């Protein structure tokens, strides 16, 4: 039943990637309820608090869009980064340093490249599903469904792949788990605040606006709003940017994990 002699083993074999993902699925079955519950409850709470609270007192609408719908579409990006970067950071660190899971996987015919790709793909797919939840909740709060929204899971997937790669690379780089505090404070929180999810960035000083263009989350926010309120030509560029982000992070994650896992 062992491998047939002479069978070629290539790079990025679907069997290896599928096997690693099946491990994640088996684990997910033990904790999906909690994750799913909070992913649904969170946007509802935010929309009630921010949307209804703020629009009753301070802001009514942004660029002709009711504030609840503005925040609701923006929250897709928040959901994506929090269900990709953070699980990638903590999950990878725990599996590698505390549970020795990767030692066992790499003793099987699986390369670091396949391992990292499988972990990214799993996190990316999961986060793209969770990313759509705020959009559905916002529809419940009165946003009109639009055909363009059907592309949102794809935008979420590329963004989530990029942030999963980012999180995995960070897990390979940090020496101790509490150094994730720096990563969160320096990258995750600023990226999410200056994404345009909660307030339009064109009110910000010029410097911030340029920075925001480099922020994948901002591009995602714009794309989701495109899906809800109508795309523009520049959105193609945004998609290309997200694909490039995912690709670069994929290679960086593989490179850093190889350095960490192979002596």
């Amino acid at each position, binding site marked *: 039943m062992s491998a047939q002699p002479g069978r070629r083993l290539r790079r990025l074999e679907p069997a290896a990637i599928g096997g690693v993902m099946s491990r994640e699925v*088996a684990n997910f079955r033990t904790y999906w309820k909690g994750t799913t519950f909070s992913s649904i409850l969170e946007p509802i709470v935010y929309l009630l608090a921010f949307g209804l609270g703020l629009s009753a007192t301070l802001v009514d609408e942004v660029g002709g869009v009711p504030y609840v719908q503005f925040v609701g579409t923006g929250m897709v990006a928040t959901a994506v980064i929090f269900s990709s970067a953070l699980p990638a950071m903590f999950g990878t660190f725990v599996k590698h340093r505390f549970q020795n899971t990767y030692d066992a996987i*790499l003793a099987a015919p699986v390369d670091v490249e396949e391992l990292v790709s499988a972990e990214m793909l799993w996190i990316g797919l999961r986060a793209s599903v969770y990313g759509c939840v705020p959009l559905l909740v916002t529809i419940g709060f009165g946003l009109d469904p639009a055909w363009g929204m059907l592309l949102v899971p794809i935008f979420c997937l590329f963004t989530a792949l990029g942030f999963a790669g980012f999180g995995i690379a960070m897990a390979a780089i940090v020496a101790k788990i509490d150094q994730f505090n720096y990563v969160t404070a320096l990258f995750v929180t600023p990226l999410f605040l200056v994404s345009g999810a909660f307030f339009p960035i064109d009110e910000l000083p010029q410097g911030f606006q340029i920075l925001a263009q480099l922020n994948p989350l901002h591009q995602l926010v714009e794309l989701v709003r495109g899906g809800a309120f109508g795309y523009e030509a520049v959105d193609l560029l945004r998609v290309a940017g997200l694909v490039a982000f995912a690709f670069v992070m994929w290679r960086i994650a593989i490179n850093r994990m190889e350095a960490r896992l*192979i002596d």
Partner: protein
Amino acid sequence: MAAIELRGAVKRFGPITAVDGLDLEVPEGICLGLLGPNGAGKSTTMRLLTGQAIADSGKLRVLGHELPGDSKAARAEMGVVPQLDNLDVDVTVEDNLAVYARLYRVPDVGAAVDKALDLARLRGRRRDAVDKLSGGMRRRLLLARGLVHEPKLILLDEPTVGLDPQIRTELWTLIDNLRTRGTTILMSTHYIEEAERLADEVAVMDKGKIIARATPAELIAAHAGTHTAEIYGPPERLTEVRAIAEGQGLPVRPAGPAIAIVGSERAADGAVPEDAVIRAASLEDVFVLLTGAEAE
């Protein structure tokens, strides 16, 4: 063809040379015990064999595959049982096995899982989460996971370290069954008894090199002789006895609170006191003489 062939393998970690020009050949079908004190380089050798460490120099072949280039093909045909338990604790017993059956590209995952469950005698617990199992069951599962694809070669890195004696005996039985079936086994250990019971041949490793290799009986005959005399008493007396024995060219080693004169059958009159406990020479005598380490 040998299952494992290492020629002049070197692995350095900064200033430390963990594996220092290691030559090791493991013929097919035997169980080789790699016996060495802490830090001898046993785990590093295992990691070289799975491609998780890359040698700085030397030639390495596993099951005919050149390392590190063809390491993936080699890994497909071998099984590894780690020193540390790294099962997925929240997941069921059968899912743990199924994941590895897939990673090893086993064509019929269900059948392979059933076989592994039988081997680990865990059929009745297949749907339980791993953290519901006893320590012994977890160990059996860990071993079965490494065997789920019925590998030709299996690497066991200190398979019973830190386990209580009953669990250890259970595992020994399982490993012995594998050996009978003809699976090639490379097993690192620092338990003498484990090597004595399971290994067809023992290689003593120290400071990254093999310093002796033969069957346990041959090693004992060559390095220890037939008998060992153990002498207990106050330190001054032991020092005295030691001096006399060493004066006659007999090796003496510490044995806990006692000292042991190895090869006491060769002692001239007066070297072995009347109250000495004479026993058959053991692999432990050889190990301590060769490595200078107190055995466990």
